């Protein structure tokens, strides 16, 4: 257990350092989410009270689309730089690579979400401040699920042709349960009398555990040379 965690921490550190050196991934994803949110606002009447009902769904949809772009480089970079086999031989269990990439992807996604939340709240006229801890928890379990499935699918799509198109096609249908559950929880939290749907949080946690277990069992085959 210990070498797994220390390996994963080391790779996680590498991922975060690489990203924060350029901040390419974060900055382009944030711009992308911003564009999607603005374009959504043109298609709907954002001044009505209805916006409390549909806005969280749009927000999560934007995050889902963003994630399908954000997960692209995590294995592609290793392949183009030919570092994957070195990475594989440096760890005792390939699951450490997945753990690290999932943690890094979840962190980047969570950062994007937290930066976008205030912008979104202003544009769609919803309040979130009082319910912030609940929203943070929802973002966390939701993003962890997106990152887990996304990292697994990215490992598949990087080995195929047309990978940029293939990743969203493979990933988005898998993420349907996350979209449903996290939207419902967020709608509850952003409603006029806010409430927390623990059932939804539990559901998201189940998704996370199921896909983490699947990756733990089958992950090593995804990285076979």
């Amino acid at each position, binding site marked *: 257990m210990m070498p797994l965690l220390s390996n994963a921490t080391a790779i996680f550190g590498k991922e975060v350092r690489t990203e924060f050196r350029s901040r390419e991934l974060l900055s382009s994803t944030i711009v992308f989410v911003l564009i999607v949110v603005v374009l959504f606002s043109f298609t709907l009447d954002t001044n009505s009270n209805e916006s409390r009902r549909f806005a969280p769904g749009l927000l999560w949809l934007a995050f889902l689309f963003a994630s399908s772009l954000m997960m692209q480089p995590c294995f592609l970079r290793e392949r183009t730089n030919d570092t994957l086999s070195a990475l594989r031989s440096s760890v005792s269990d390939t699951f450490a690579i997945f753990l690290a990439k999932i943690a890094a992807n979840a962190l980047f996604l969570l950062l994007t979400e937290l930066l976008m939340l205030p912008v979104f709240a202003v544009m769609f006229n919803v309040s979130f401040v009082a319910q912030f801890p609940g929203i943070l928890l929802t973002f966390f379990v939701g993003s962890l699920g997106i990152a887990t499935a996304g990292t697994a699918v990215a490992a598949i799509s990087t080995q195929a042709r047309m990978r940029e198109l293939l990743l969203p096609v*493979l990933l988005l249908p898998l993420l349907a349960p996350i979209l449903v559950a996290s939207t419902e929880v967020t709608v509850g939290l952003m409603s006029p009398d806010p409430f927390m749907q623990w059932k939804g949080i539990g559901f998201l946690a189940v998704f996370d555990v*199921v896909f983490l277990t699947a990756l733990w069992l089958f992950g090593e085959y995804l990285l076979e040379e």
Partner: protein
Amino acid sequence: MAKRFLFGLVAIALVVGAAYSSLLIAPEERTMGALYRIFFLHVSCAWAGLTAFSICFAANLLYVWKRKEKYDGLGVACAEVGLAFTTVVLITGPIWAKPAWGIYWTWDARLTSTFILWLLYISYLLLRTLVEEADRRALLSALFGIFAFIDVPIVFGAIRWWRTQHPAPVIMGGANSGLDTAMRPTFWLAVLAMHVFMAFLIVERYGLERMRGEVEMLRQEAEG
């Protein structure tokens, strides 16, 4: 060859028998009249499709474990056949729903998860066309097939909890559900017929996939 021909004949005879029975023998339904007769085709195809996807899942697991080419062939055969049956379900459903419910489509748990199941297996087949190397294609698609199959119950759970006002299950539902006894023989005949037909299609498709593999190998040798 003769065996396969016989198998196909039996499968087609069963399907024709089931069609005859569901259109002419089964009694009228109290509220829907003759309209409900599409139920026999709709539900038996749905079950046959799910069976094919379950075999596909087993074949995917076996491929990852044993790395035998035959399991890859079985996986793709089952995925395609399951997709064909699910397509029939997705077409007959709206045809039935329009006169019965007044709408073609509703975002109910079973409809939506069937649709997502259908999309996931289309993605599975799409992935197969985009990986060149045979071993890698087999392994990656098997792994994606495993992820897709375990996702489906979660999709169903999510939609059932949050987004549905679905009608209660008729078969194997609660105490007051269930088919009229006079409809039962036709229903089980339809289920049997569709499963035999599904098995026949899988066997044929599997044979085709093996042949394709052989041709590819021979071509590589000739070019070699």
